């Protein structure tokens, strides 16, 4: 019988990678991989350089004529400012330990998403400009000329890194791609090359106090709106205060908690907990953002946005600051805030008014993470809890990158989770704690136009979730990060339907037995509690 032709011979498509080395392989902008260009008004609103209307897909990015000088001067300046950059430029041995640790590499398979190579994009230019070997030997020494193609390549790949620091955990020298991405983005911002999903929120935050650009009256009414829901569920009236001088504690949380589901349930959780404790605290509409999209732009903008927290604490005359559940917010708070905008000597060392515990680990910076605060309450038996109300929850814990690798907040949330939820299951060891996988949408990449990319980046995380979903029937992923709540919900909906995402204090509030509450029939999402048959005006949605 004649040899049958093979299908792939008939419709031959050449998948083989370019045989050229990575330096000679120009970047290809694939739709779904990148975010939209920063808008002129958002650049101008923050007095960023080169504010103009431009589009990523255009050949001409409307750069100033001397863009190359600006980049080179910017790089020189940052080499002099950051020892981390200087050292990370010099000491990488390209051992490849980081190569397969990046969620974007695992999900996309694009070799330039290996952290080592993403860093080489910048290193190659550094070598050409600043090292003798690079100047003389050129490509042989891994050096290359800065060109417009290289610039575009930077833009493409530095906005395909979520600054999650997972690579840094595995690197024998601790080389942190986040540091390199941060500098890379700073350089791009010198030319007005940001994405709008970062620039828009940053601009809004600067002028209006939060990323969503919510004005003070709306901020207040949004929170008041939760009070109606809480009243319906528990029968309890709560009266939080705003911009109140003389309160003991200022509470700051990412604005996503106030506006985006399912973060809103976490915000309701805060309100209920604080009410139950009778905490003397206030919200602020001016410092109504814990997150910091300036951090994804440049150091100066990050500092500007962050400054409001201490400034407001000082104006209101509080004693210390309590911070809500957020990821990069806490990286910024733990590792930058005190340096930028301290010393906060007008505040006192945080002390829990309920238990008397002094938070020595926040002695200088004066801000306490809410899980530290709540774990302490629980340890001292200050809360009456009924974890059986969460018996329909089969929980696993997602460590958020920034709280895990930029802080080390690992046990506090787990302790709380186990106090309020009877069914707790860990994901595999190489996907949690300091080795946790990113949601794939951090560092300002949680836009919608790059959804394909986000899902690819979220695959490693969701894949481990799927595993415990199948093995233990896990149906909820707990976390302490606003971006996780917003975006992991999406990634898990795609990769592992049937599992949802919940903030920790949503679960706390569900289990919290409040003084004078009526018999609760639903959880904060208006779903019937386990054991309760049917609830009015609710459509059961769980399978």
């Amino acid at each position, binding site marked *: 019988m004649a040899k049958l032709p093979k299908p792939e011979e008939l419709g031959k498509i050449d998948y083989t990678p370019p045989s050229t080395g990575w330096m000679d392989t120009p970047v290809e902008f694939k739709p779904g991989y990148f975010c939209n260009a920063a808008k002129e008004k958002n650049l101008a609103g923050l007095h960023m350089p080169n504010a103009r209307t431009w589009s990523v897909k255009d050949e001409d990015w409307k750069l100033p004529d001397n863009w190359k000088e600006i980049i080179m001067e910017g790089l020189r300046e940052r080499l002099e400012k950051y020892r981390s950059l200087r050292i990370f430029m010099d000491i990488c041995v390209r051992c490849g330990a980081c190569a*397969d640790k990046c969620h974007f590499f695992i999900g996309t398979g694009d*070799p330039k998403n290996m952290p080592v190579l993403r860093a080489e994009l910048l290193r190659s230019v550094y070598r050409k400009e600043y090292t003798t070997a690079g100047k003389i030997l050129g490509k042989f020494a891994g050096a290359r000329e800065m060109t417009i193609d290289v610039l575009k390549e930077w833009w493409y790949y530095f906005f395909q890194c979520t600054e999650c620091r997972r690579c840094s955990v595995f690197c024998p020298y601790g080389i942190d791609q986040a540091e390199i991405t941060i500098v890379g983005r700073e350089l791009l911002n010198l030319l007005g090359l940001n994405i709008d999903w970062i620039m828009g929120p940053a601009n809004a935050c600067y002028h209006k106090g939060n990323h969503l650009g919510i004005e003070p009256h709306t901020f207040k009414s949004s929170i008041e*709106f939760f009070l109606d829901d809480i009243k319906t569920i528990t029968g309890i009236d709560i009266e939080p205060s705003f911009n109140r001088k003389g309160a003991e504690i200022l509470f700051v949380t990412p604005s996503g908690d106030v506006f985006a589901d399912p973060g809103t349930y976490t915000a309701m959780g805060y309100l209920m907990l604080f009410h139950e404790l009778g905490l003397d605290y206030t919200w602020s509409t001016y410092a109504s953002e814990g997150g910091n999209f300036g951090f994804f732009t440049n150091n100066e903008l990050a500092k500007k946005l962050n400054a409001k927290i201490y400034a407001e604490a000082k104006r209101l005359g509080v004693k210390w600051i309590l911070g809500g559940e957020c990821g990069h917010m806490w990286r910024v708070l733990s590792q930058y805030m005190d340096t930028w905008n301290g010393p906060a000597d007008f505040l006192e060392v945080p002390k829990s008014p309920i238990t008397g515990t002094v938070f020595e680990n926040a002695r200088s910076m004066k801000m306490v993470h809410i899980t530290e605060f709540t774990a302490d309450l629980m340890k001292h038996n200050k809360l009456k809890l009924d974890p059986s109300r969460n018996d329909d929850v089969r929980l696993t814990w997602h460590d958020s990158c920034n709280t895990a690798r930029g802080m080390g907040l690992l046990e506090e949330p787990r302790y709380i989770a186990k106090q309020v939820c009877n069914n707790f299951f860990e994901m595999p060891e190489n996907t949690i704690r300091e080795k946790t996988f990113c949601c794939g949408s951090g560092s300002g990449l949680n836009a919608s136009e790059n959804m*394909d990319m986000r899902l690819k980046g979220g*695959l490693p995380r969701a894949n481990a979730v799927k595993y415990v979903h199948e093995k233990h029937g896990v149906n909820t992923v707990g976390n302490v990060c606003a971006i996780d709540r*917003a975006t992991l919900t999406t990634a898990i909906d*795609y990769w592992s339907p049937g599992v949802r995402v919940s903030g920790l204090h949503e679960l706390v509030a569900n289990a919290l037995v409040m003084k004078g509450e009526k018999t609760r029939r639903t959880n904060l999402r208006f779903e019937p509690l386990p054991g309760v048959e049917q609830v009015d005006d609710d459509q059961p949605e769980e399978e």
Partner: protein
Amino acid sequence: MKLDQILEKNKAVILQGWVEIILKAYPDETSRFIKSRKDRFDNPVGHAISTGVEGIFNCLVEGGNERIASFIDDIIRIRAVQDFRPGQAVGFMFQLKSVIRDVVADDLARQDAGLVRELLEFESRIDEQAKLAFDIYMKCRERLYELKTDEFKRNTFRLLQQANLICEVEGQDASAN
């Protein structure tokens, strides 16, 4: 020999050949990674491909159609977001044919009419499942767009809700969704 015997006997070779073809779609350095790291958490793509092809193959040979969808789903769900064109994304199903033709080439050369018929039948079965693969692909892509709107809704629902209240459009809305 009957076709299913041949397939059973050469299962390892077929699966390996099939995986190789699938991985050709990725750059060398990537396909090596996908092949080499066996940990399903460090390498979800590789895991989905290797368990997926085996599952699909078994179902095709044994005719078990219930589980096949989930194996195809594991692979397609990844390919649906990995910037393959639709044809490429589902094309791997058809590629199984060529792998099998290679294996049975010698037997076919003996002009075994029964075997030819069985082969054509088996290939039709593959075609049938390829259609399923395409359905799954479309579902994944649609899901992706739904997710975008869902996310948008989650981000704006509270504000819309407030706006509604201010305008007193509706009395009570279910907050559960």
